């Protein structure tokens, strides 16, 4: 555990998700503290996205509960967002024919107050609220590095920019916790580094972050705490150093018998630390094409 002694911002306890005969998640416990960046790794189909869906109310867990600052979260995505948990999606889900700014403004929806009547008449207070929201959203676009692209349709943005726009849209909901599902998938090394910096500066805003990523180098260099999910179960958790050297993690990733893995870990321990992640890294290339789920 990290040094933070306060109560966790987000706590999932015994979250279990069963689809028909398939247990996608089994008694998953996670605690996220203020100012923390938590990495969630695991092979394909481990249940990482399913876990996010349970956290955000898209799925209602079969068992278990999720608490934000001590309060149990409802199982309705809209209410969860209002409560302060925002997310991005594994396969980008922007509003393609809205402009970048409009996308972020939609994220601002739950923090704006204008009802139908005010929207009908566009009175002074409406205009003020609208102008404030615009200013805030333009700032957010600036923050994620999309300044000047506010009038561009989301569908016309390059891939990397779309991922950033999703983050800006999520930030517009003023979250306490931000869930990022593979934020660097499909990015080149420069973009990945920019994303790393971006996530670090999001932490500076006082937002706790959970990141799902297959790029272990990225995760180990970014996170304070890493949890490894394998076949729906939390296998290992701890600081990046602890997780990185754990033979079970390597086994789960490579599917090799423990003895063989142990031998590899020994060899691996002898290597320079800069190259350490290279054993697990080839996993990325073994990923099948991404499926249709979030």
């Amino acid at each position, binding site marked *: 555990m990290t040094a933070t002694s306060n109560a966790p911002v987000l706590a999932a306890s015994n979250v279990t998700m069963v689809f028909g005969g398939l247990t996608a998640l089994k008694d998953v416990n996670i605690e996220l503290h203020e100012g923390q960046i938590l990495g969630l790794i695991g092979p394909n189909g481990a249940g990482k996205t399913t876990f996010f869906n349970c956290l955000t109310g898209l799925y209602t867990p079969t068992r278990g509960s999720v608490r934000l600052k001590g309060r149990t979260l409802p199982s309705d995505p809209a209410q969860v967002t209002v409560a302060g948990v925002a997310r991005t999606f594994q396969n980008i889900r922007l509003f393609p024919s*809205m402009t970048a700014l409009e996308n972020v403004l939609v994220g601002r*929806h739950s923090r704006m107050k204008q009802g139908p009547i005010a*929207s009908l008449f*566009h009175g002074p207070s409406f205009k003020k609220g609208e102008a404030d929201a615009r200013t805030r959203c333009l700032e957010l676009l600036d923050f994620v590095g999309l300044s000047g692209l506010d009038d561009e*349709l989301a*569908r016309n943005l*390059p891939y990397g920019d779309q991922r950033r726009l999703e983050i800006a849209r999520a930030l517009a909901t003023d979250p306490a916790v931000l869930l990022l599902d593979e934020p660097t998938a499909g990015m080149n090394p420069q973009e990945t580094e920019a994303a790393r910096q971006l996530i670090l500066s999001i932490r500076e805003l006082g937002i706790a972050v959970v990141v799902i990523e297959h790029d272990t180098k990225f995760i180990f260099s970014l996170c304070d705490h890493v949890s490894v999910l394998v076949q729906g179960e939390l296998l290992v958790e701890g600081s990046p150093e602890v997780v990185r050297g754990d033979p079970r993690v390597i086994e789960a990733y490579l599917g090799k018998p423990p003895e063989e893995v142990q031998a590899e870990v020994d060899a691996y321990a002898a290597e320079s630390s800069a190259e350490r992640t290279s054993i697990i890294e080839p996993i990325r290339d073994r990923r099948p094409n991404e499926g249709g789920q979030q």
Partner: protein
Amino acid sequence: MNIPIGWKYLAIFIPSVLGLIGLLVLIRFAWKKGTEYVTPRPTLSRPLSIGGAALGIVAALMPWATFVLNEGAYPDKSTLQFFDSPWAVSGFRLHTLLLSLVALAVVFAPIRKHRIHKALGWSLIGIALINAAFIAGNGGGFGAITSDGSSFAFGAVIGLVAGIALVFSGKAGPVEPIPHLSTDVSRVVAYAVLVVSFTALLLGVAMMLNAGGQGGVGNPYAGPIFLSLLAFFAGVLGALHAVGVTGWISRLSDKHKWFSIVVLLAVALGLPFTEAGTDYWMTTATNIGVYAATAIGLNIVVGLAGLLDLGYVAFLGIGAFVAANFSGAAAAKMGFELPFLVAVIIAAIVAGVFGAVVGSPTLRVRGDYLAIVTLAFGEIFKKSAQNDIGGLTGGANAIPGVPPINWFGLSFDKPLEIAGVKLPSGVMYYVLIIVLVALVMVVFANLKNSRIGRSWIAIREDEDAARAMGIKTGKAKILAFLIGATLAGVAGAVFAHKTSTVAYDSFQFIESVTLLAAVILGGMGSIPGAVLGAALLLVLPEKLREFADYRLILFGFALILIMRFRPQGLVPDKHRRAELANEGAEGVPIEELNLPDDTPGGAKAQVAR
């Protein structure tokens, strides 16, 4: 005047031979082999355009029919009267002449010509085909437009060749970009341009409404005259678009929004003072207004929130029946009669409540299933109205005798005289509906550019993502249904007072489809689109009356063509335009980028990457 027969032959012979030579040139030389698309050689562009324009002029001055048709002379001296008064060109022959003269002038003007020639060429082809087809159909075969004994009438044929030549001259070269005219002009110039163009628009609309009279009864030629005028206007607009003028005007009006709105309103109110200011057109225009207001309401549900509603006309019906009951029959029985405005408000509320009720299944069902629910509701409404459930609709007897609106002693169904100018009866309804449509437009635009409107569009784009952004999608969708239905209810109340008899058969499935077609045809989510769509869908059937049974076929065919070639609608909303138009992100025409573009948006999306 008596012209010797020899001259007659010569006069016919020379242009005909010219036309044939033109055709041969096209067939022999015009094609460049080996390219994917058939394109003429660039060097042929100039001769083709000069030849085409010259042939067009010839076509305009030639006779188009060899004899007088059964219902009387085909309009505007298209018959062999040519030899009596060759220069008295009017109607479609005047249009042909104008188009050709412009095409000729453009050849020698220092501007980009290809797009202009293509537009003018297609227009000429349209005019030639429409009139030729009609003369041939009504005159007993192609003899009527070619020769009959000693008489020749090659006008249509030569016009067709001229059009084809111009189109090919336009295709003989790269697609040129449309010039982007700057809107940095002085306020005076901008205002003047806007006033002139909106006035031109008014005159154009009046001309179109009046073309060939009211159709069917008045003039057996109304259909072709109208269609031919439509082809002419399409050519003019195409040419203006090619030189960047239409884009410029639309950007100017965006920049001076309020001025444009005021001028547009004034122009709309000016219609009764034009040649279209007859009882008949006032009634039609009022109906168009009713449909336009309803279509804009439907546009909230379909265009913004993306919920397909196949029974929408029921809300118009509910509004109409409520108003009819409160200010007509039922009310009279109970000894009271509500003023119009109160009846409107009640109608709006009742329709809105029904809208919310019909919208509530949207919480559970999505997409196609919702469409079925709305379809069922539309049918339930019709059947209930037909069977006079609750004695509220009069069943097959309808509700007759809804009193006309009467404000300050001014009865809306009477003719009006302002400063000595006699205005047709129904003009007050027309004014009322213009105001109503303007109000509905403001409602739509304000909602669209607000938190509520954005939430609707977000739901249309991706409902799950919208929920994840904190939008209560159920509430938002019901609100869309409620507001859309309320607007339809208001329109229905006006409709009831205007028609004075409200019967269930005005609110059948086909009307729902027409409204939906108006929205899609005009461009989903676009306000001018919905108005234009409603206008076209109501005016076309009026104008095409003499095609009787073929009317709906023609109509359906036109819809298919529009959807094939302009899936984003006639006046697309900026978002949809980007999604579906054949243009790249920066307005670069796809053809220029040399991408195969079979799937609308497909190639475009790749370009955008």
